[in-house]
């Protein structure tokens, strides 16, 4: 079974003074998979990526790629393609020369013509062959990152490492480039590790998402599983929005607002707890026994975001996607109902 994994990071540890950036961190990736590491600043996601690239010395642990232990291999011998957060194109080289650089370094026997042919193919892949003679300062941020992607892919890397490559770009370009990265990754089939602090980016692009906290991998799962079945309260709260509503856990269910809802494994097993309810799991109705009052209503195009105050003064946010026949106003008293999907219950 373990032979199926293309990349194995085994119990990596790294400390910077008192801070443990990686604490027995382990991760396995299968061939062609795109894994995103998600977490807040300082959680160790970039340290893990840099360790795989050979740019970060480890205190302990093992890195295996293609069944070969590369823990002590220098960066330039690892064959990892990397795209950095900051623009990293070589300023004195044109786009074409940038893409050719890795080929020159790794495959010295390849002829100039062949090298140029491959580089042009890669520039075609990122749709920038018309800019091959441009220098980095003549390119926009998005174009520079696309060239950097072509440069990283030119060496046919064992693993493609993307270190927050979209964070310096504006929202529109970021979304376009995110889709493009995924398209290209699927086309070339390179195993890819993508590091980001943006959950929308991670959930939108990855086959699996690993959520990290203080150097530890809290949970790794498909985006849907991570969202619907978080294993820890940190994952539940970090990925997507949640409304913590107080209730009582008994026999694997939590009683919230008079409803019994199943709790997810890892939740509080008995006693008082807070159910982490997703905004889209909340429905509103108008009846004779209201339990909440509308504070604000925001129209978001395809959905309506409603902020409410419960009778016990707890504030919750509901996201309504089917609101055509509803005519709510601020101050209206409503009854809040929760979809009976399993929720995570955390300690008070």
């Amino acid at each position, binding site marked *: 079974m373990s032979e199926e994994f293309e990349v194995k990071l085994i119990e990596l540890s790294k400390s910077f003074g008192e801070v443990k950036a990686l604490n027995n961190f382990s991760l396995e990736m299968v061939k062609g998979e795109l894994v995103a590491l998600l977490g807040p600043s300082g959680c160790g996601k970039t340290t893990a990526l840099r360790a795989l690239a*050979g740019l970060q010395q480890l205190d302990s642990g093992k890195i295996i790629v293609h069944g070969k232990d590369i823990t002590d291999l220098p960066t*330039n011998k690892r064959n990892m393609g990397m795209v*950095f957060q900051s623009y*990293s194109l070589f*300023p*004195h080289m044109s786009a074409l020369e940038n893409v050719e650089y890795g080929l020159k*370094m790794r495959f010295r026997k390849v002829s100039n013509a062949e090298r140029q042919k491959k580089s042009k193919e890669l520039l075609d892949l990122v749709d920038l062959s*018309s800019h091959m003679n441009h220098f980095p300062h*003549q390119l926009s941020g998005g174009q520079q990152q696309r060239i950097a992607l072509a*440069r990283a892919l030119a060496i046919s890397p064992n693993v493609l490492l993307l270190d927050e490559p979209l964070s310096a770009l504006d929202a529109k370009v970021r979304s376009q480039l995110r889709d493009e990265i995924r398209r290209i990754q699927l086309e070339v089939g390179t195993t890819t590790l993508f590091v980001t602090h943006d959950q929308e980016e991670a959930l939108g692009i990855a086959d699996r998402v690993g959520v990290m906290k203080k150097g530890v991998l809290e949970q790794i799962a498909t985006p849907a599983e991570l969202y619907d079945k978080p294993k820890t309260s940190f994952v539940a709260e970090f990925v997507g929005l949640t409304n913590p509503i107080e209730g009582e856990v008994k026999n694997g269910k939590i009683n919230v607002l008079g409803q019994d809802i199943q709790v997810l494994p890892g939740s509080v097993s008995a006693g008082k707890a807070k159910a982490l309810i997703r905004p889209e799991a909340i429905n509103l109705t108008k009846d004779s026994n209201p339990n909440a009052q509308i504070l604000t209503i925001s129209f978001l195009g395809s959905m309506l975001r409603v902020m409410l105050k419960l009778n016990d003064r707890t504030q919750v946010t509901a996201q309504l996607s089917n609101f055509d026949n509803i005519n709510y106003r601020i101050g209206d008293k409503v009854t809040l109902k929760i979809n009976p999907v399993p929720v995570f219950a955390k300690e008070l």
Partner: protein
Amino acid sequence: MGQIMSKLSKTDVWRWIIISFVGAYLLIPIFAMLEFSTRGAPGERSAEAWVAIPTFPKLLSSIFSSLQLAVVVIFAVVFILVPTMIWIHLRLPHLRRIMELICLLPLTIPAIVIVVGIAPTYRAIYQIFGSSPLTLSFVYFILVLPYSYRSISASLFSIDTHTLSEASRSLGASTIRMISGIIVPNIKVGIMSGAVISIALVLGEFTISNLLNFETMQVVINLLGKRDAATSVAVSLAALVFAFILLAILPTSNRSRSSKLKSNKKTEVMYK
């Protein structure tokens, strides 16, 4: 005239006043040197002093020695200082302050003190390397450190050295290829200005070479000045012009890059 003046803003007027003042300050002595070195019979000009330059064998050999020294010092800057600075910048940033302090130290020590301190060392140098004027390159390298360090350091800070080096390493470059192929081309302007300042300093240095009894260009010009003032001024002027030509190399090297960029813009138009 009034119309022209009204078109010029106050700032422009002040700018031209300052430029004229600085220009006059620099050019008047040079014209005076030219005038003095070409002075012939009353009311006539003569190139006698300039023609006489090659007839002083000591002068030619001293010019040659100074040029050799400049080349050796530039080699030392490029092959010792530049890699050391890059290495410290990338791998040992905590040593940056110490390096800066060491490199700037020669600025604070008068030349005479340096000579007194270094004279005993030179006795050992004579024994190992002989008494060639080229041995002055050791002390000259120390003298040029502050100027070279400043210009190279400014260039290193102007680029994202860490990311560029990591990108280069991840693409398969060895440390030497990363330094020579990526970092050095991007700090070329800093290295060039450091080198030009070093040349100017080596060609103009007098105190140390004189006190250590070496016959460099400035020492011989000084001696010559006592016998043939016009020729000594002619040689000084020639050295100045040479330094100016070197200073002109910097914009030229930048121009070669911008012309490359211009050619790209042409290509861009073709694609459109």
